């Protein structure tokens, strides 16, 4: 193909399309084989009764939507497991996400403030981002040992004549610890994203506002916040999609049990339980479909909020 080097005009007529296909083919072959086919086979499993009863393999027998009915049928206590797990996931996510966004907004405003010119920014950013890279399992282990009945926190309580508080036996303290770890791991990341957003705002708006005598509070609520809204929405929804996948921290802290009393059990923990421990593939498929639908709806919202920006950029080209 490249032998005809002294005739560049001729090169234009050579089609390089086959190279395009060649370059993208490993990605697509692997994606189809390792993700797409498993995705459909997971969905397919949802319509079969297929589980291990001790050492006996029951099924697979086609049962239609029966697994979905089972999944959403209330227990004798009146509660529906899957709704509880979704609720636990949401509660723990919100408990971590609210301080995460508030801290990140404050930090982003501080870092980008023209007036204050904060020194040592590189140091502070390095430090607050670090927890994001640490193994979630290690964080979970560390906090489990710190708050365990024989850990340092309880030692401090008993040293002052108090009684031992079983942090992992109370649903609110257990949930708070999971939420706190999530907050700690993600507020630095959110800060960096919001900072990029603030720096993307047209500086002349801030100048105009200050000439008009606007206070910093007014600037924040009337200019920074509204213009930052698309990015905040993007951050919140992607965090929510991440939050739906919450697994490592509560799994390690409760040894997979979601204790106390299934109040820290998340959707993915339930899924992991069905695939790994109880080998109930029918129910695992059903939970996967539920998870897929929720993620799909949320992703759709993300695309709706980011799409107009992309079009504008394309138009400029």
């Amino acid at each position: 193909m490249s032998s005809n080097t002294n005739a560049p005009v001729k090169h234009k007529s050579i089609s390089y399309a086959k190279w395009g296909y060649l370059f993208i083919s490993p990605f697509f072959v692997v994606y189809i084989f390792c993700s797409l086919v498993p995705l459909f086979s997971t969905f397919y499993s949802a319509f079969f009764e297929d589980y291990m009863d001790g050492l006996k393999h029951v099924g697979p027998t086609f049962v239609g939507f029966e697994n979905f009915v089972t999944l959403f049928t209330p227990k004798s206590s009146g509660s529906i497991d899957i709704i509880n797990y979704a609720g636990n996931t949401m509660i723990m996510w919100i408990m971590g996400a609210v301080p995460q966004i508030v801290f990140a907004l404050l930090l982003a405003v501080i870092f980008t403030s023209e007036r204050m010119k904060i020194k040592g920014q590189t140091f502070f950013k390095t430090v607050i981002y670090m927890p994001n890279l640490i193994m979630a399992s290690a964080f979970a282990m560390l906090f489990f040992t710190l708050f365990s009945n024989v850990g340092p926190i309880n030692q401090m309580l008993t040293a002052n004549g108090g009684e031992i508080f079983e942090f992992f036996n109370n649903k609110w303290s257990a949930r708070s610890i999971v939420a706190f770890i999530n907050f700690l791991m993600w507020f630095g990341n959110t800060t960096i994203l919001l900072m990029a957003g603030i720096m993307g705002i047209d500086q002349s708006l801030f100048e105009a506002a200050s000439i008009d005598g606007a206070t910093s509070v007014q600037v924040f609520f009337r200019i920074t916040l509204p213009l930052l809204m698309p990015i905040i929405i993007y951050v919140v929804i992607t965090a929510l999609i991440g939050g739906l996948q919450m697994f490592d921290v509560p799994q390690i802290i409760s040894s997979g049990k979601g204790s106390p009393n299934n109040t820290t059990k998340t959707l993915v923990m339930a899924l992991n339980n069905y695939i790994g421990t109880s080998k109930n593939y029918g129910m695992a498929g059903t939970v996967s479909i539920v998870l897929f639908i929720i993620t799909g709806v949320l992703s759709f919202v993300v695309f709706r909020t980011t799409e107009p920006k992309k079009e504008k950029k394309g138009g400029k080209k």
Partner: protein
Amino acid sequence: MASHMEYIDKGNKTSLLIAKIVSYIFLVFVTVLSLFSFYLLIINATRSNAQLQAGFTLLPKEHFIDNLVTAWNDQSIFFLPQGMLNSFIVSACTCIISTYFSAMTAYGVCVYDFKGRNVAHKFIILVMMIPTQVSALGFVKLVNALGLTNTYWPLIIPAIAAPATYFYMKQYIDSTLPLEIVEAARVDGSNEFRTFNFICTPILKPALAVQMIFSFVGTWNNFFTPALILDKKEVWTLPIMLSVVRSRINSQAGDMGEVYMIILLAIVPVVVVYLFLSKFIIGGVTLGSVKG
């Protein structure tokens, strides 16, 4: 925060000073918040079980080596250094092939004009949001059917298709790689593969480095998929070992000094990498995530 902002606008220097002081106090607070758990971890890894039972302290003790030896020789998790090696093998292989092939895909979409190019791009963006957990059941079944349980292939090979890495590289190539270079290479008689491997990748180096770091760290920390694929002790990666140590700690049974040491050893490599490359990493966060 809100109230001190008001004063700045009066142009009053003392008020600006107060605002600065409050901000620095807040920054010191979040610094302590981010670091205290690491500090406690390091201190506790230097204390013996008896010292840990005796109470809290902020100063290191002399049992670091003892704890290291105990953790090193703990057979209930097979062999900790083996776990570290396993984690390293999986992470290193994953980050190299994931970054290389995803960059190649992005390059293919950016540089060549072919039928279905837009469809290919839109498809990858569409599947980017699908969590790996959703297809986990089918994937585990596939791995079982192929007899690849307890091997690293099912952890490494799927990384060839990393939609987020593709997306990042696509944006980077669009904004930094001049297509004239590809044309010029063609004129010089370079084959397309050679152009990509030896002429274009050097230009993409900063982005490739960022993606390799993220991929390495992500794989090092991954717990969900390895936990479903690896059930033999010999092949366990670190997060699985941690989960095993965790289930052993009930009441007073375990040697807590050793536990802290194991946690420390699991995170040290990533912390070291981070401290050297934090500039790239923090710069890379925004490039990859915010669209437009």
